[in-house]
């Protein structure tokens, strides 16, 4: 067995307990917390009998262990339970909405990575200069300004006043790629603001960290140009950090899409969750949380492995 395969297997094994905890957590969040879902679902004015009926229909009157068993059964079947409102399984509701969210997150990541890394490197390279301070100011505003607020202002300006973009709605890529892009561009850019700020700040400090290392001085003592030092010596070391950041960014993009989808009325998973919560469709919320949780266990695993393989010190030992 090569070290690489062994590393992958070990990481996979380490992920198993996390997957288990994630699925139990997603269950517990709505079943064990002090709030009584039946009361909340039935509403404030409900009679005790009505609450009891809700409780029975949700299976909440059964023993805890049985509920947990049913929960795992749903997971194993791959349908992740049934929505109370939508008349479909959570899995199929999610599959329907996923392309929107993935398009949004993917597009924003595609915008973020080059700009964030570029700006961060630029600021690090020109540290202390006006370029550094301008980039860092922009980045600071990016991580500080609430996206739904900027989204509101942007819709008012670009969609309503200038009419450049539709203010809401979604067109599938397969149906019309141009319309798809037009519908998603503004939301993606707004989603990217935070991410660009975050990534450029992180890139800058990682690069500065690398700049302080002895081997950069060695490189300079060879007469290598500053640009080559940045692009070859520093960046390859900082890459490890950028990979780690990508995992966090993806998580931020998925989280941010909840709000952005709401503002732009995009029919994605984020909107599904919010609708689910407002409609008190607990199984739906649970199911989506679980699927997202499991997805990120997988993403973190990939990031972890990519990280190991980007660094020869880990790769060979």
């Amino acid at each position, binding site marked *: 067995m090569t070290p690489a395969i062994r590393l992958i297997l070990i990481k996979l094994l380490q992920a198993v307990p996390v997957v288990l905890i994630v699925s139990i957590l997603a269950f517990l969040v709505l079943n064990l917390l002090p709030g009584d879902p039946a009361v909340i679902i039935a509403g404030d004015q409900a009679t005790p009998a009505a609450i009891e009926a809700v409780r029975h229909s949700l299976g909440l009157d059964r023993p805890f262990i049985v509920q947990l068993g049913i929960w795992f059964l749903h997971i194993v079947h791959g349908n992740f339970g049934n929505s109370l409102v939508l008349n479909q399984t959570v899995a199929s509701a999610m599959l329907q909405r996923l392309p929107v969210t993935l398009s949004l997150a993917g597009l924003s990541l595609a915008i973020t990575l080059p700009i964030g890394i570029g700006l961060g490197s630029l600021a690090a390279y020109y*540290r*202390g200069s006006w370029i550094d301070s301008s980039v860092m100011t922009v980045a600071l505003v990016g991580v500080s300004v609430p996206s739904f607020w900027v989204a509101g202002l942007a819709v008012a300006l670009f969609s309503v006043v200038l009419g450049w973009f539709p203010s809401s709605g979604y067109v599938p890529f397969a149906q019309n790629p141009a319309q798809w892009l037009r519908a998603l561009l503004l939301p993606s850019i707004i989603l990217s603001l935070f991410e660009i700020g975050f990534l450029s700040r992180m890139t800058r400090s990682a690069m500065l960290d690398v*700049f*302080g*290392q*002895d*081997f950069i*001085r*060695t*490189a*300079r*003592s*060879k*007469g*290598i*140009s*500053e640009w080559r030092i940045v692009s*070859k*010596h520093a960046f*390859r*070391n900082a*890459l490890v950090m950028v990979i780690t950041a990508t995992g966090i960014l993806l998580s931020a993009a998925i989280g941010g899409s909840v709000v952005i989808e709401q503002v732009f009325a995009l029919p994605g998973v984020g909107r599904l969750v919010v609708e689910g919560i407002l409609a008190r469709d607990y199984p739906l919320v649970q199911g989506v949380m679980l699927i997202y949780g499991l997805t990120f266990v997988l993403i973190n695993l990939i990031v972890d492995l990519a990280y190991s393989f*980007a*660094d*020869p*010190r880990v790769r*060979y*030992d």
Partner: protein
Amino acid sequence: MPADALVSIRDLTVQFRTDRGWVSAIEDISLDINAGECLGVVGESGSGKSVTALSILRLHARGTARAARGSIMLDGRDLLRAPERDLRRVRGGDIAMVFQDPMSSLNPVLTIADQISESLRLHQGLSRAEGRSRAIELLDLVRIADAPRRADEYPHRLSGGMRQRVMIAIAIACRPRLLIADEPTTALDVTIQAQILELLRDLRAELGMAVMMISHDLGVIAEFAHRVVVMYAGRIVEQAPVGTLFSAPRHPYTEGLMTSLRGRDIPGQRLGSIPGRVPDPDESIPGCRFGPRCAHVEAVCRAAVPALVSISENHDVRCTPRSQALAPACL
């Protein structure tokens, strides 16, 4: 400036940015490095010996240091004022450097061959393949066994001693006229230190380059140098040919260092020690900075900063009472 001086430093003062403003790390450093010679620079931490070395190639971290005064001449050009582009040709070309810590001085994500051939490809326009085969030759030259295999490995696979050999291979790749070795053996074990010193001595003879050997260890200096510069608290306090310095040191600080080492041969005997501690660079001390620790301090030492005075041919001392007693009366 002597005719055979390769690098000539005059009145160099370098300052660092601190919380309390700019503070001088070295002051009024003047020294020559002659072609093919081996100059030893010795001093304790805070003496400014590494700052001096890094100043020659302007390798201080950007924005943290400035040369307030002085010049560093190479081939009639002042390196302190040369444009960055010109300086890059000097770095790794005319003047190369080996650093103290071989564990952190190599880039962990690039192969050995890549790091050695980089300056060859840059300064001599070699292709990637040519660079690699030159790198393997250089690894042989620094006596690394199994060079072709080692060339494709990453630094973390090598021991400290091997990494320092790789650092030396990088430094000599373009046949520099001056090799600056900044405490090249301090981080290494005793037997490995001896191996590296032997390697450097052999290479110096083979390639005919000058070496500036910086060390806190008088033993290393005694073994390696032709001429020695002793630094204390940012200033040169004494310079002399190695034989003179070790047989007849004139500065009280040099004397103190010698006695603290020599007493060690007798078990149980108290060592000669220099009382007190090295002052911080921003501590203000009137007159001679060694004054507070000096057993022979006089009123004149506190009155003014002593000058570096020649007391015989090639022997300079920065100590007012001593130079008054010893300087040739030909003034």
